[in-house]
């Protein structure tokens, strides 16, 4: 990511692609295993829901006496006939839907963060050529001056200086000798008052959450050494709010930060990281020698919120002008394209998830369902023939087979989507520094639809075979 310290990010050839691939593969296997366990645990619930719906359909069939309702009732009864096969079909569809809901969530998340906003969008200023971006701290004031005075008034940020924010990344360890992930702390170093106005993912805070953050900001403004840290990180570091800690710089070698933890972040917001006051970093830099390696690299990036695209294009041209910034040169891009550039490295993985993994999983599950349903159809071939003998049309027989599969698909897809939405939503997982990772509500629609679709496709072949059962042949074989 832009500006992530070298110790924490890739330089040149990016080996993290392998790490990420391995991570994703491991996550996929883990997710499938987890979905399998959850599917097994929820099996009784599935049969209970099935039973409840069957009772409703029984009442409907009893009251109306309609042919369709009787047919649906036969479908429900058919599902109870072979609990093992119904369970396996449910499990297969449950696992598939869970995994695909998860993939859909990731892709939606990526789509959202890389989507351009038509107006009021954010732009990022970074080093023109070097990744991770590290630029002179003095550029921040120079850039602010350019935005607030160099741009025509109608193109300036609506909230003036409050719409411009600098970011420096500070990473350190609480142990000067054994610097391990569990005693490390990664922080966004910035002006505290801009945490709530400029940071992504903080525009949906509840009243209590906002009070917690505002309280922390107030303390950070009063005390340069004050920091706020996510609760999960506090727990990992084994420290509490009110404690003072020393942080030994990782990307700021030889620099020792003395912090006072004045607050924590609400659950699911910037999990695993913290915020520190920019003034404190500036103050410490002044105490370091003039040739200290980070003196001219202490600013990682600048954010600005502009009113429209024209303003962005005008300012971008000014930033590109060597008369304004030439040593080092910098560039400005929209936040989404900046994130998009970062994600470019992983595009093959995302492409694979979307166009290879997803269709492959759907295809495999269709085959699994087809196999399970065709066994059922083979076993009940005589029964299908009897229905035809009694006058049921081939389409009725086909509907019975499709209906049973679709009912399981609907329930399995619905339960998988709901449990994913509910479960992952409550886990408040986080990717990088984006907000909490939640399953979009649309998954509650797509999940059941996926279950129904896969069940339908998978059972289509066996249903056609049931439809075409030749009565005389069946009974000739039986006799």
């Amino acid at each position: 990511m832009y500006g992530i310290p070298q110790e924490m990010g890739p330089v040149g050839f990016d080996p993290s692609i392998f790490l990420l691939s391995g991570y994703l593969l491991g996550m996929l296997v883990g997710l499938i295993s987890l979905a399998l366990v959850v599917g097994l645990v929820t099996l009784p619930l599935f049969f209970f829901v099935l039973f409840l719906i069957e009772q409703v359909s029984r009442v409907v069939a009893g009251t109306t006496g309609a042919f369709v309702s009787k047919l649906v009732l036969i479908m429900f009864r058919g599902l109870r006939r072979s609990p093992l096969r119904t369970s396996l079909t449910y499990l297969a569809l449950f696992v598939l839907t869970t995994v695909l809901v998860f993939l859909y969530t990731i892709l939606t998340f990526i789509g959202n963060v890389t989507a351009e906003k038509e107006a009021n969008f954010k732009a990022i200023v970074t080093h023109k050529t070097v990744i991770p971006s590290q630029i002179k701290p003095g550029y921040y004031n120079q850039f602010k001056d350019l935005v607030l005075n160099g741009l025509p008034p109608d193109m300036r940020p609506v909230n003036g200086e409050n719409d411009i924010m600098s970011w420096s990344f500070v990473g350190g360890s609480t142990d000067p000798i054994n610097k391990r992930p569990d005693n490390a702390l990664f922080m966004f170093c910035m002006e505290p008052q801009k945490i709530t106005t400029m940071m992504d993912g903080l525009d949906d805070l509840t009243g209590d959450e906002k009070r917690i953050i505002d309280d922390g900001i107030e303390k950070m403004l009063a005390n340069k050494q004050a920091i706020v840290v996510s609760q999960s990180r506090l727990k990992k570091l084994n420290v509490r709010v009110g404690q003072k800690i020393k942080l030994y710089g990782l990307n700021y070698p030889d620099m020792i930060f003395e912090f006072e933890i004045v607050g924590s972040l609400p659950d699911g917001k910037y999990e695993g990281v913290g915020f520190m006051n920019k003034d404190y970093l500036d103050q410490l830099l002044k105490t370091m020698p003039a040739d200290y390696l980070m003196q001219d690299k202490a600013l990682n990036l600048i954010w600005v919120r502009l009113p429209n695209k024209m303003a962005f294009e005008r300012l971008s041209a000014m930033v590109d002008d060597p008369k304004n910034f030439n040593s080092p040169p910098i560039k400005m891009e929209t936040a989404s394209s900046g994130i998009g550039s970062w994600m470019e490295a992983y595009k093959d993985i995302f492409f694979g998830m979307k166009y290879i993994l997803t269709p492959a999983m759907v295809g495999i599950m269709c085959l699994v369902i087809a196999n399970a349903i065709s066994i059922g159809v083979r076993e009940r071939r005589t029964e299908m023939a009897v229905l035809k003998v009694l006058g049921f049309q081939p389409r009725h027989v086909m509907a019975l087979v499709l209906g049973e599969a679709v009912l399981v698909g609907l329930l399995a897809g619905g339960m998988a989507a709901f449990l994913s939405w509910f479960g992952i939503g409550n886990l408040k997982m986080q990717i990088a520094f984006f907000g909490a990772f939640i399953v979009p509500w649309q998954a509650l629609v797509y999940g059941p639809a996926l279950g129904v679709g896969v069940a339908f496709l998978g059972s289509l072949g066996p249903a056609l075979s049931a439809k075409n059962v030749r009565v005389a042949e069946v009974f000739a074989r039986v006799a």
Partner: protein
Amino acid sequence: MPRAIVEVRDLHKSFTRGSETIDVLQGLTLDVGEGEFLALMGPSGSGKTTLLNLIAGLDRPTAGTISVGENVISDMSESELARWRTRHVGFVFQFYYLLPVLTAYENVELPLLLLPLTKEQRRKQVETALDLVGLTNRMDHRPGQLSGGQQQRVGIARAMVTDPTLIVADEPTGDLDTKSADEILRLMEILRAQLNKTIIMVTHDPKAAARAQRILHLEKGQLVLDTAAVGV
């Protein structure tokens, strides 16, 4: 013989197995009178079940015509045959073939679902059918909870619930003990005598055949003997 309700003319049926063509029925001609109880006998492979299937509209002949009542069923499409079967034919199978997930009542009701009847009309017909076979006290039982004889009685109730023109039975007593078989045959006699149903029954059992009015012997796809049953 009373007015013929089933008329079979020069009936041929062939099956192809690999490159071999097997002529199961070879120019068979037959009339079955209205309200007649007919038994079809013959060795295995003689074509009796094939003939039964053709008369019941479960299969289509290779050549020849079959008429049941006013309908030439040999000319009907599969869906026309399905509709025709619902109204005009009742089936009794050797192995009952009741749907195991449905109760006796629901099994008997199945063919009625395809007819334009109200819920009440259906209920009345199902109860009448179950009453006739003496199973009103078992109507909420699943097939697994009934004996073989009781299951076959449900099968008979299902066959007659639509008040069909014709009842066909393929070895209806083949899977039953002597007592149950006797009950089933008695029921079939009642159907014929009291409700004037035309019954065609395939059987290997001479005792069962003796309960019919007429016995047809088939051999190699041809009618070899047409006799009045001894027991009648």
